[in-house]
């Protein structure tokens, strides 16, 4: 398949002109080659600082096949009062008798004053009848709120917020009006899958009821991911959550109540280049412990059994990288994970002291 691209640009434009351009480009392309069809999966609205527009655009390019059908990239520029727009219609020429997909990207340069009424600018340029996801990686909460009526899903990254507490509050606020896809939560997916698998065989499953300690290791700025992982365990295993306290290692310590039994919890920041979690150790009071730690080609697993025997091995899996995480975030717009909200609630419970102090 050979790629192609149609382009339209206009300075000091308006939403109607952008919408006309989209329709016109689509008609022209289809008239020239009727084996090309527009992808119709998802609208993605991205609100970014103008200076970071290129970087975010590159990140979106790298998500590969999880690219949204129509992306509307709103770049906020200090002092701007008018709209400049650029429409790119990219397509692959079909090969072997198939069809080729057209993907549309609309870039609109806006000013800060446009943020509170962004819905009036964006609404006309969305593809109709498709779910719409909003991603605002540089804050601009005002824009997210303004777009609420158009929004089905909000993509956010709790690890990117100044603190886990603020991140969880923001996620809870947004989840009242839209479905939340949290990249911090998606960074825990392989860990959740592996923990679920590790405790799935009948000879291991009983150990879930005997967990005495959980320690999660994370890169310094990924405390939200770590708390969400522990929140997930707590919500799935029915533990009563109590607030964690700060420890001397810049981490968090505390306990959960597993039906009258204490489960010691520890969240530890460690030095790690890649974002997200570094490792997790789950131990029972009976002498069983399982550790999973990030390593080349997968997770390094270490198990210690009550009889004193130990095993180490590698659980295979390639890292998805941040592009993979973002792509997964876009894909998740079409799915619903019923376990995030309870995990978020538990994670907020772990931060309860801080939240109370703030109030």
């Amino acid at each position: 398949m050979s790629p192609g691209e149609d382009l339209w640009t206009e300075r000091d434009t308006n939403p109607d002109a952008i919408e006309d351009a989209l329709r016109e480009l689509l008609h022209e392309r289809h008239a020239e080659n009727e084996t090309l069809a527009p992808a119709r999966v998802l609208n993605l609205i991205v609100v970014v600082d103008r200076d970071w527009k290129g970087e975010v655009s590159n990140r979106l390019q790298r998500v590969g096949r999880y690219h949204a059908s129509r992306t509307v990239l709103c770049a906020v520029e200090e002092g701007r009062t008018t709209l400049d727009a650029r429409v790119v219609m990219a397509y692959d020429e079909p090969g072997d008798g198939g069809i080729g997909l057209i993907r549309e990207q609309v870039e609109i340069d806006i000013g800060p004053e446009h943020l509170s009424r962004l819905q009036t600018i964006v609404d006309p340029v969305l593809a109709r009848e498709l779910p719409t996801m909003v991603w605002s990686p540089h804050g601009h909460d005002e824009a997210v709120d303004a777009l609420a009526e158009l929004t089905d899903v909000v993509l956010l990254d709790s690890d990117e917020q100044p603190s886990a507490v603020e991140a969880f509050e923001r996620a809870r606020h947004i989840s009242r009006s839209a479905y939340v896809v949290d990249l911090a939560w998606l960074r825990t997916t392989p860990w959740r899958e592996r923990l679920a698998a590790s405790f799935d065989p009948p000879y291991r499953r009983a150990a879930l009821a005997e967990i005495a300690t959980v320690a999660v290791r994370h890169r310094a700025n990924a405390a939200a991911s770590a708390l969400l992982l522990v929140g997930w365990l707590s919500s799935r295993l029915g533990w009563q959550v109590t607030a964690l306290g700060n420890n001397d290692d810049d981490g968090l310590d505390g306990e959960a109540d597993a039906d009258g039994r204490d489960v010691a919890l520890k969240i530890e920041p460690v030095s790690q280049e890649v974002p997200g979690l570094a490792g997790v150790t789950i131990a029972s009071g009976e002498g069983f412990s399982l550790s999973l730690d990030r390593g080349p080609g997968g997770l390094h697993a270490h198990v210690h059994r009550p009889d004193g025997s130990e095993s180490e091995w590698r659980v295979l899996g390639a890292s998805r990288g941040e592009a993979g995480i973002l792509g997964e975030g876009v894909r998740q717009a079409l799915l619903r994970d019923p376990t995030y909200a309870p995990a978020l609630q538990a994670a907020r419970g772990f931060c309860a002291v801080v939240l109370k102090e703030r109030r």
Partner: protein
Amino acid sequence: MATAQAVAPETNPLVPGLERMPVHPTAMTIFGATGDLAHRKLLPALYNLAHEGTLPERFELIGVARSEYSDEAFRDEARSSIERFSRTKPDPDVLDGLISSIRYIPGSFDDAQVYEKLEQVLSEMREEAGQPLNRVFYLSTAPQFFPVIAQALGDAGLAKFEEAQTRIVIEKPFGSDLDSARKLNTTVLEVFDESQVYRIDHYLGKETVQNLLAFRFANALFEPVWNRNYIDYVQITAAEDIGIEGRAGYYEHAGALRDLVQNHMLQLLALLTIEPPASFEANRLRNEKVKLLEAILPPKVRDVRSMAVRAQYEQGVVGGNQAAPYREEEGVDPHSRTETYAALRLEISNWRWAGVPFYLRTGKRLAQKLTEIVVTLKPVPHLAFQSQGSVGVLPNQVTLMVQPDEGVSVSLGAKIPGPQLRIRPVNMEFHYGTSFMSQSPEAYERLILDAMRGDATLFTRNDEIEALWGIIDPILTAWHRDTRSPIRLYPAGSQGPAAANSLLRPGHAWRRL
């Protein structure tokens, strides 16, 4: 230590919400590990599962074949196959991790020592893992070795394992006719329980085939008309523009009927016509398929001539290039009577489908590569537009496109713009590619994972395989007995033999390829 009430021992509370279901620690043994299927499909599929982190946390692989390889030599072969055929670019660390522990056992499949060695290696792996490993034996050999290996596994005590599950995956073809399929079932089921047996047909692992179920049972729109009252006839086509691509050894024995009709096309027919199962649990779905297949009454041998047509391609032009006749393909008997084209008319004897003809056709070296199901509805009872010259009104057709583009197309009558009420058919098309972001996983990846997880939904059960052969067997018998009448020929690159039209009822027509 107290046990938390929230944790029920019989269920895993960590699983809900996860897309990937847990797979228990497994040791997989591939018999025929040096063969083409293993190198092109199985090893790359296993690598891709490893790459995506979906293999079990403990996964061990053993290759068994006749070639005299060392562990190291086989690992090198496996590595180069994965590097060549994997759909994702291999990550060196993941590839090393997968390859480094592979064991290889050389020997003949009927040699008891091979199985002693296998037992020893499996025990070592279990010891090293410090936990029980499920055992999956994957038979990727020539079909004549299937009963040999199953029997030998039983003799060696490898068919059951007290600590964990043992499963056997058997590649197609499962038998070459009804009798051989029954014999193979008998041999396998003397050693293994049916619940341990996974008869694989990779076609069932394709997303398109599973989408058939979603199309039928997730949409209220079609179900009310999905019966004899509204459907006039159904056509299933699996056309290829290529020839036998150097597979004369297999194809000369198999022919088009065994190659595609007995398995893929009848599976498509079954999924298109089964009653809605209460759930998609393996046996409920398979019960419905067996019920449907048993409702297709096999023809009597003497009636085959009126419901089946076979033919063979002769010289022709495909895609602008001259194509040689089948009998001149390398390895093909110059007097071969093997059919490269088969067309059938089948009927389903039940309340839903009685009287509706199902036309199936498949062939090599046809005009184009195309797999589709076309459901033609009956015409409207009264055509009010006739007096105004609406010659273009045609019955509605629902087309389920499988290849090259997966999708659904519905033909509708629409008014031609203008002062008069003239009608012509238009298509309302839906392409999966425009509406989903995900790439379909390779069928083998899905099926290998299902077998390791013990989900038999997409595998063929013993009674199902016998029902499939039961439909085809009389046709094979009739064609086998008929050694005198000349085999029909069709030009390579054509629509197939004109004789296929003789199967059609009045008013019906084959869709142009």
